[in-house]
C-alpha cells in the first residue's frame, strides 16, 4: 500500500509538471493577448503598450517566462517599472514557492484575488452539495427498494429531466418565475432576489443570506440530485440481490436493518468515491450559476480572466484545479481501497 501511494505521488508530480507546461503554452499562445485591447485604442500610445509588456514580463521568450513563473527570477533581472532598464532580481518567487504573481487586471497578488473568491464559492457549492446529498440519498434508496413502483417511475422521469435541463437555462427560468412573476405578499417586491450573495442595504441577516441562496442552489443542485440519486439507486440494485442480503433476511433481520446496515453500507462505497472525484468542482465553482446569479466566486473569476486574458489568474486557477483533479483521483482510489477491503492495490 505504501509503495502504491509513493508510486502514485511520483506519477502525480510528473503529470503536474507536464500539465503546467501544456497549460502555460496554451494560455500564452492565445493570439490577441492581454494587451490587444490597449493596442487597438487610439488613446493608448504604442510606447505605453511596450511599457506594460515589459512590466508584465511579456517581452521575454516563452520558456524564460515559464521559468520565472515556475521558479522565480533570482537569476535574472526584470524590468519592474517598464522603463526599458532591467533593474531587479528576485521580485518573483515562482509558484514552487507559493508565488502566483500579480493579476494583470487589478495588479493585486493572484492569491489574494483567489482567496476573496474561494470562500464565496466554497460557501455556495458546500450548501449545494449538502442539499443534493440530503435529497439524493433517501430518494436513491427508496427508488431501489421499491423498484418499478410509482415513486420509482416518477423519480426515473425526474432523473431524465434533471439530466437534460441545462443549468444556465434553469437559472434563467427560476429568475423569471421567482423574481419576475411571483411577488412577496408582505413587501410587494419580487419574491426572491435575482442574484448576489446578500442585500446591499441593511446589515448581516441570516434570513437574507438564506434567501439569496435559494435560487442558485436550486439551479445547481437539480442536476446533482438527479445524478447522485440515480447512481445510488443502481448501486443499491446491484447489492440488493446478493447472497449476504438474502442471508440477512433469512436470519430474520427486519427489512429496515437489512437495507440500511447490509445494503446501504455497501452501496454507499461507490458514491463516496464519486464524491471524491467531484471535489474539484466544489473548489472551481459553477461557472454558469455564478455568472447568472452574479455570485462573486471562482467560476466567475475564471470567466472574467479568460475574457480579459489575465494570464496569471488563469494559470493559477488552472493549476489549482488540475492539482485538485489529480489529488482527488488518488483520493478516490485510496478511499475505495479503504472502504472496500476486497480491493487491493500493489
Amino acid at each position: 500500500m505504501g509503495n502504491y501511494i509513493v508510486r502514485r505521488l511520483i506519477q502525480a508530480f510528473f503529470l503536474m509538471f507536464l500539465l503546467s507546461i501544456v497549460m502555460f503554452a496554451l494560455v500564452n499562445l492565445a493570439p490577441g493577448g492581454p494587451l490587444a485591447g490597449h493596442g487597438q485604442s487610439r488613446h493608448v500610445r504604442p510606447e505605453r503598450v511596450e511599457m506594460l509588456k515589459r512590466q508584465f514580463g511579456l517581452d521575454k521568450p516563452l520558456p524564460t517566462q515559464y521559468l520565472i513563473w515556475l521558479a522565480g527570477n533570482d537569476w535574472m533581472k526584470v524590468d519592474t517599472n517598464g522603463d526599458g532598464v532591467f533593474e531587479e532580481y528576485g521580485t518573483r518567487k515562482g509558484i514552487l514557492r507559493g508565488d502566483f504573481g500579480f493579476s494583470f487586471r487589478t495588479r493585486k497578488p493572484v492569491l489574494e484575488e483567489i482567496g476573496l473568491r474561494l470562500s464565496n464559492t466554497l460557501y455556495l457549492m458546500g450548501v449545494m452539495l449538502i442539499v443534493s446529498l440530503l435529497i439524493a440519498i433517501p430518494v436513491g434508496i427508496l427508488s431501489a427498494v421499491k423498484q418499478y413502483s410509482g415513486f420509482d417511475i416518477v423519480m426515473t422521469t425526474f432523473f431524465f429531466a434533471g439530466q437534460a435541463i441545462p443549468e444556465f437555462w434553469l437559472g434563467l427560468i427560476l429568475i423569471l418565475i421567482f423574481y419576475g412573476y411571483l411577488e412577496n405578499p408582505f413587501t410587494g417586491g419580487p419574491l426572491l432576489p435575482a442574484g448576489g450573495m446578500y442585500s446591499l442595504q441593511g446589515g448581516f441577516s441570516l434570513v437574507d443570506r438564506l434567501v439569496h441562496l435559494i435560487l442558485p442552489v436550486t439551479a445547481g443542485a437539480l442536476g446533482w440530485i438527479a445524478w447522485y440519486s440515480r447512481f445510488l439507486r443502481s448501486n443499491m440494485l446491484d447489492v440488493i440481490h446478493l447472497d449476504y442480503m438474502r442471508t440477512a433476511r433469512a436470519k430474520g433481520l427486519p427489512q429496515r436493518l437489512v437495507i440500511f446496515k447490509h445494503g446501504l453500507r455497501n452501496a454507499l462505497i461507490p458514491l463516496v468515491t464519486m464524491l471524491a472525484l467531484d471535489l474539484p468542482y466544489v473548489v472551481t465553482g459553477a461557472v454558469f450559476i455564478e455568472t447568472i446569479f452574479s455570485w462573486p466566486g471562482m467560476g466567475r473569476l475564471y470567466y472574467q480572466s479568460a475574457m480579459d486574458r489575465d494570464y496569471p489568474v488563469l494559470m493559477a486557477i488552472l493549476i489549482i484545479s488540475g492539482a485538485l483533479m489529480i489529488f482527488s483521483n488518488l483520493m478516490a482510489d485510496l478511499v475505495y481501497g479503504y472502504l472496500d477491503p476486497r480491493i487491493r492495490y500493489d
Partner: protein
Amino acid sequence: MTDYAIEQQLKGPTPQPQAATSYQGMVWRRFFKHRGAVAGAIVLAVVVLSVLLAGLSPYDPIEPNMKETLQPPSLSHPMGTDALGRDYLTRVLYGGRVSLAVGVMVVMITLTLGVSIGSVAGYFGGWLDSVLMRFTDAVLTLPAFLILILLSTIMREIELPFFTQNNVVAIAVVIGLLSWMTFARLTRAAILTLREMDYVKASISLGASSLRVITRHILPNMVGLLVVEATLELSYAIIEESGLSFLGFGIQPPTPSWGNLLSNASEHFLKHPWLAIFPGLMIFLTIISVNYIGDGLRDAFDPHKVLQKVGEV
C-alpha cells in the same frame, strides 16, 4: 461500466426459443418495447426535420427588421421576434442546425479518436498500451470545462483554412479533443475481453492481419457498446456547445446557436420571456430525447439487463 458488465454485454444475446429473427431484429424489437426510447425517437425526428427544413421559413435568420422588434408570440411569429425584429422561430431552427451539427461532429471526432486509440492499446498491449492509457488518464485529469473555455478563445482568433465557417468546426474540434477518453477506455476494455474469444483466436491462427481481425471480428461485436456511448456523447456535446456559446466563448452572433440565443436573451428576458424559454426548451427536448433513445438502445443491446428486468435472472 465495469469490466464484468462489458463482458456480459459482449457475450452477446443468449439464444431464445422465439429468436428465429436475426440479432438485429431482436435489438430493434427490444428497442420498440421501450416506450421512452420510442417517444424520444419521435421527438428527436421532429426536431431534426424542422431544423433541416428551416430554410422554408419566409423570414431571414440574420437580417434585422426594425419595424417588428420584440413582438410576443403570435400566429405570424409563433415564437415572437427578438430585439432586432427577426423571427425567433427561424432563428431557433437555424440555431438548432449549428447545435446539432456541432453535436454530430463531436461524436464523429471522439468516435474516431477514441476507438483508434483504444483498439491500438487493447489489441497490441505492452508498452504501447501503457503509453496510450497513461496519456488517456492524463487527459482525463484535465479540468475539462476550464480548458474548453481557454481553447475556444484561442480557436476563435486563429485563422486556419478550414475553420473560417464561423468557428462551428473549431468548436466541435475543441470539444472533441477533450472528450474522446471514454471511447478509448471502453474500446480497450472490450477488446481485451473479445481478444480472448475463440473465434478471434481462430481467425488469427488462420493468418488474418491485425487490421482485419480488428475491423471484421472485434469492432462489429462492440457496435452496441459504442452506439450507446455515442448517444451519451451527443447530448454531452450539445450541452457543452450551448454552455460555451452562452458564456460567449462559442458560436458568435449573428450566427444563432441555442446557447448564444439564450445568452442574448438574458438581457431582456424578464420583459420578454419567450426569448429565454424557446431556445432552452429546444435544448431540453433534444437532450432528453437523445438520453431516452440511449437508454432504450442500452436495453436493446444488453440482453443481460433485459432478462434481469423480467425477473429471469
